[in-house]
């Protein structure tokens, strides 16, 4: 009955597109796929985003020449209100590998379209920025690593990369990176500053591109899980859960309740150690050593708890396809409560110290503002979105694990500045603690895993999770014999990085580290 109404809702939503849709199928309870001709792409996508408030969730280019005879593009839009995804699928002929760009109407598609050109050689016509994104300028223009017939390695050529040229003589160019003084990962930032004030910032990333999507092609699903776990250093569990969910969704299995609850517990533990560590690290942006140390100390306590629970400080190696690899004993669950109550008391004090510190407040408030409009246009996710008043939380909007069973408030702020992001983290730490408490109270007993049956080749599925930095989305197409055919990883950092340079102009140069810290984005899971 519910399904029927949902189908009606979706039909109504798509009504205005009428004949532009070649076919429309409900491929899963939460996902409708529509096939369109590529010429209609801008119109259809712009309609879904700008008129129907869809949100670009991910975009995947796929080389399906072997079994379908052409390249395929999938634009996935999330409709949060009705807990549904609409995938726009379009075929691109090998002889004519171009398609109309949607980036002008849907700015969030900017990076995706540049990436699909770099990796698959499908060019978005009318895209305002034709520079390479993922592969830097020293990569030859006619080598596309994600094509199935790609033969590596390639000889690099001289760099054809360009950066913004400033004409006024008053603008000072400040290049920073890609190697930084701290321990952060590589990224090149180029400031155009007038005096102390930043006029323009350009960020060049993808120095840590490891080709994970390519190297996981052909891997057995069970082994690919371990790759998924290593996409990101700190959101390891979210990535593992998202990948496992994609496989489980493709295999159409239902997990035992205990596995779902334990996943929720562990996911929230991951959020806790990250958020508390990040709150401490943000103090580094204004040189407040006490905050940094205490943040690190609490994070260490939480990581030692992780180590006791699953044997790994970053919660790796606990997720299995179809559930968990091992169970948690009652005594271990009790130790979670104990440690968390200690940490909570200390954490409250820490927050109070930071928020009552005049310099901290002065540096954080009104710094690095991301407006709601920018956040919506760029489909920003996670803490950054919620701090700008964009209410997206995939735990609430498309519940997975046991998030349907626990109650939690979605932390929302409207200022969009560093302080707002700080406050969102504080509120989320509180709600994570609340959720863990509920999970412990409700934790059912029973099995912790189910076997994964054979999956039909070329089944596509998605998995998602709200990592501490925002939602991650894994798009998977299973190949013959339970291997990975195409794996598209869209991490929170990938959605949020394009927003960072927008928040810097108007601030002074020394504010950049603070702004950057408040977003707390990874480089490697963006670069993959």
């Amino acid at each position: 009955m519910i399904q029927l109404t949902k189908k009606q809702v979706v039909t109504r939503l798509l009504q205005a597109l009428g004949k532009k849709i070649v076919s429309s199928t409900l491929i899963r309870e939460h996902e409708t796929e529509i096939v369109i001709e590529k010429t209609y792409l801008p119109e259809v996508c712009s309609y879904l985003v700008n008129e129907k408030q869809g949100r670009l969730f991910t975009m995947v280019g796929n080389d399906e020449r072997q079994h379908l005879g052409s390249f395929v593009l999938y634009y996935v839009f999330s409709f949060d209100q009705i807990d549904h995804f609409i995938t726009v699928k379009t075929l691109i002929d090998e002889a004519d590998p171009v398609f109309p760009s949607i980036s002008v109407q849907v700015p969030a598609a900017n990076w995706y379209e540049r990436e699909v050109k770099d990796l698959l050689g499908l060019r978005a016509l009318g895209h305002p920025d034709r520079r390479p994104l993922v592969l830097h300028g020293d990569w030859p223009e006619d080598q596309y690593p994600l094509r199935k017939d790609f033969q590596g390695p390639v000889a690099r050529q001289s760099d054809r990369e360009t950066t913004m040229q400033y004409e006024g003589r008053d603008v000072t160019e400040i290049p920073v990176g890609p190697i930084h003084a701290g321990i952060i990962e590589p990224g090149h930032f180029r400031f155009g500053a007038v005096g102390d004030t930043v006029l323009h910032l350009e960020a060049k990333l993808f120095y840590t591109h490891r080709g994970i999507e390519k190297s996981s092609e052909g891997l057995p699903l069970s082994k690919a899980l371990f790759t998924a776990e290593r996409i990101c250093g700190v959101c390891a569990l979210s990535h593992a859960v998202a990948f496992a969910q994609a496989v489980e969704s493709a295999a159409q299995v239902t997990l035992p309740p205990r596995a779902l609850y334990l996943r929720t517990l562990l996911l929230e533990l991951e959020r806790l150690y990250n958020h508390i560590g990040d709150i401490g690290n943000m103090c580094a942006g204004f040189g407040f050593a006490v905050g940094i140390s205490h943040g690190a100390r609490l994070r260490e306590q939480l990581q030692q708890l992780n180590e006791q629970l699953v044997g790994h400080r970053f919660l790796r190696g606990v997720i299995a396809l179809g559930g968990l690899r091992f169970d948690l004993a009652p005594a271990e669950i009790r130790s979670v409560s104990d440690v968390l109550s200690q940490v909570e008391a200390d954490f409250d004090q820490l927050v109070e110290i930071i928020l009552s510190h005049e310099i901290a407040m002065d540096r954080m408030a009104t710094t690095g503002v991301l407006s709601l409009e920018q956040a919506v246009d760029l489909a920003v996710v996670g803490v950054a979105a919620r701090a700008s008043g964009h209410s997206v939380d995939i735990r609430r909007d498309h519940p997975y694990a046991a998030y349907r069973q626990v109650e939690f408030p979605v932390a929302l702020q409207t200022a969009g500045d560093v302080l707002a992001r700080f406050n969102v983290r504080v509120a989320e730490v509180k709600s994570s603690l609340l959720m863990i408490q509920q999970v412990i109270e409700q934790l059912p007993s029973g099995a912790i895993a189910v076997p994964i049956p054979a999956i039909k080749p070329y089944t596509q599925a998605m998995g998602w999770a709200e990592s501490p930095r925002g939602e991650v989305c894994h798009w998977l197409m299973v190949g013959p014999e339970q291997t990975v055919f195409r794996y598209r990883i869209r991490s929170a950092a990938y959605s949020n990085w394009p927003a960072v340079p927008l928040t810097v102009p108007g601030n002074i140069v020394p504010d950049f580290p603070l702004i950057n810290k408040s977003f707390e984005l990874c480089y490697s899971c963006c670069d993959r």
Partner: protein
Amino acid sequence: MFEILRKIWQTGTVTKRQPLAEAAGKYRGKIELDAAKCNGCRDCVGICPSGALSGSSDRPQIIIEHHKCVFCGSCADNCEQRAIKMTNQCYLEAKDKQDLIARIEVSGEKCG
């Protein structure tokens, strides 16, 4: 200001000296292979996601390249002979990579 100093005073020193006490019991550290129990079936080689385990085709030998291991524990979970186990040793540093490669002659006959 006073609050901050009080907090620092209360916390005391939290840095510990190396080497620390043992890692947690569940911690998955360096793997250990019991050559006497192993029958050379090479299930562990097939299951290892990082290629840390291999066998040479001409003799009953398992090669463990500890620097490639990601400590997932799959080999230990899947060995029917219970010949591999995860220890909680976490200090694996070595000056020479060769020191991290162990070639273990196993008694099994199934290899080759």
